[in-house]
């Protein structure tokens, strides 16, 4: 008899799950939904985005919020999977009724959510995905990019490399969109700046490749002047490791976009290779301005660690949201977007502006070289050259061309 109770009990449980209707609507808050990867290697970047976003919103809320409303946010873990993330985004939009969506580090997922947000008319502020398609080819009215993209990174890298004497190049990278996009972007811009460069060849490894030694010897056998490494995320650390182990950095100079970032250099400690050329949006030790110092202090007080590049993205996103609503004067999506287009705010790295045409925040790029410096447990970037945002942004003509509009 008792066993027969199972069926109804299970049925009720499933039904109650399903019928958990719309979460309670508190009309007095601005609700932000964050879909991002909190499981797997990518989470080393995304935790900072969330934490800095919280830091900023706490500050805003403490001052009474925006237009009398507090900012509230909920997070969903997409596990770096498009289907899970897309489903979570729908849940946030349809069930949680969020006003704004934020995230994510997965470019494919970002493009999918961007498309969803256009349909649902919800602003989507991208905080880590680097695909240039997001604000380029696939850009739309509702998507904004709060971080640099592959086109910008490539342009910055090319600008730096053009000043060097190297002629014969080899390109290597992660065999996925990000790697190819960075490599293409660097190479195309380098070709325009320095028509005499020559490409000896390229090699691509699978994402998550654990051991780079075989690739390094293959590259050495081609004898290039310099190598462009287009690897991101989890690949950076082991690549630097392998290059230190083989002395690759000493025999061939190479450029790698995020090589100088703290998430890449800190795990390696003092064994990281010196003299690697890299670009980044942010260092907690650069620029040496009061705004940056204040931000680093706040962050360190709150979480006990130094902010990495993701923290900058999370922090400015919160501030952009606050300022845009204030300018709009009411909680209205269309007015919010109109306000955000072309808006500038102050930030730890100086004034940042959202370009009105493609909704891309115009980040300056810092190009530096890895070096051991007294007082740090790991290598840091030195000889930092700032490439201003307007110089690294893709031209509006290029974007129009990519979008197929006149």
């Amino acid at each position, binding site marked *: 008899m008792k066993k027969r109770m199972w069926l109804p009990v299970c049925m009720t449980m499933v039904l109650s799950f*399903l*019928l958990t209707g719309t979460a309670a609507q508190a009309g007095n808050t601005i609700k932000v939904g964050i879909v991002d990867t909190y*499981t797997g290697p990518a989470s080393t970047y995304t935790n900072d985005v969330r934490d800095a976003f919280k830091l900023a919103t706490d500050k805003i809320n403490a001052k009474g919020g925006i237009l009398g409303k507090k900012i509230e946010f909920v997070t969903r873990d997409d596990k770096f999977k498009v289907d899970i993330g897309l489903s979570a985004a729908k849940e946030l939009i*349809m069930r949680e009724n969020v006003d704004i969506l934020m995230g994510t580090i997965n470019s494919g997922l970002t493009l*999918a959510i961007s498309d969803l947000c256009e349909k649902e008319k919800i602003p989507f502020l991208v905080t880590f995905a680097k695909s240039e398609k997001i604000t380029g080819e696939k850009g739309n009215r509702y998507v904004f990019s709060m971080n640099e993209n592959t086109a910008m990174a490539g342009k910055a890298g090319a600008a730096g490399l053009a000043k060097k004497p190297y002629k014969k190049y080899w390109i290597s990278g992660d065999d996925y969109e990000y790697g190819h996009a960075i490599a293409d972007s660097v190479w195309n811009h380098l070709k325009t700046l320095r028509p005499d460069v020559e490409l000896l060849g390229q090699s691509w490894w699978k994402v998550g490749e654990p051991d780079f030694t075989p690739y390094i010897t293959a590259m050495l056998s081609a004898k290039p002047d310099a190598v462009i490494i287009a690897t991101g995320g989890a690949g950076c650390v082991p690549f630097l490791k392998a290059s230190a182990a083989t002395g690759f950095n000493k025999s061939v100079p190479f450029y790698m976009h995020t090589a100088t970032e703290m998430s890449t250099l800190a795990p390696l400690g003092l064994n990281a290779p010196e003299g690697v050329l890299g670009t980044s949006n942010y260092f907690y030790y650069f620029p040496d301005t009061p705004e940056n110092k204040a931000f680093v202090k706040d962050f360190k007080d709150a979480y006990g660690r130094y902010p990495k590049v993701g923290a900058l993205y999370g922090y400015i996103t919160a501030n952009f949201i606050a300022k845009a609503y204030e300018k709009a004067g009411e909680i209205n999506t269309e007015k919010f977007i109109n306000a955000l287009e072309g808006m500038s705010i102050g930030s730890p790295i100086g004034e940042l502006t959202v370009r009105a045409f493609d909704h891309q925040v115009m980040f300056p790029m810092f190009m530096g070289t890895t070096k051991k410096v007294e007082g740090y447990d790991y290598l840091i970037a030195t000889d930092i050259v700032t490439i201003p945002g307007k110089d690294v942004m893709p031209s509006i003509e290029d974007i129009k061309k990519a979008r197929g509009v006149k």
Partner: protein
Amino acid sequence: MIKKFSWKALFLGLAVFVLLLFVPRYLPRFQVYLFALIFATGLLAVSLNMVLGLGGMYQFHHAVFYGIGAYTVALFITKTSLSPWLGFIAAPFVSALFSLVIGLICVRLSKLYFGMLQISLGSLVWAVVFRWYSFTGGDDGIHGISVPDLISSTGGAYYFSLAVTALCLVIMFRIVNSPFGRSFQAVRDNPERSEAVGINVKRIQLTGMVIAGIFAGVSGSLFVVIEGSVFPELMFWTLSLEIIIMCLLGGWFTFLGPMLGAAIIVLLRTFVGIYTEYWTMILGIVLMLLILFLPQGVLGFFQEKFETDGMKTIREEK
């Protein structure tokens, strides 16, 4: 899996179907979307069970056929100017074709060897989709696929998935209970004996794979309708394992068990995910408990409880 046709079951099925027709009217949009997603995923799981539970074949990389179905529709809509409906018709055929080719290579082997060879071949397909930027969109996938207006809204997608899933379930139910279905079960239980009674085992396994591929393709095309996106993860091996979990969770010796398993997984993922980042751990624990205490799956458990028939002895002997 053999079930006598009964008026009671037919009546129950119809009643559920009619009830489901009213879902979009009374439930909020997100739940409607979830239901549609459960239909598509459930259809996928049932299609896998056509070879896994019915035929006892270790189809370890079923997601490939799902992904191919989805990509067929997506490419049809984005790359050709033909009617998108043709894409929906083409999807099962393309999936069937891939099933046939992969099947021809794999059926020579059995059990784990079969499964691992399928994983290798499937991973090759995945690698091609992952790299072929100009055609498949590479690892970014294809997004913003505009399906016909009729089925593009949440409600439209719901009704389309409901109708297609119901139709496919009816067809699959007939196949399960056809002479082919019986023979396939015989092959699952005892391939050697099946050969000795004149059944061409390899051919029946191949046919089973193609049938499963067809319905996986249909389910992939539903995914495009519901989500409007395709991406290479749809054919990654971890998804394949998830589908197998759905089958076992629901009960792989029952017809609708995998559907139930899919519903449980989708709901768990959605609602537990709201409360904790660690939902995979919870899924893992649930699975462990299930395998330890309920090895015949949830639906299998109920079927055993309510329709005895010596099922129990079988389990103990296995």
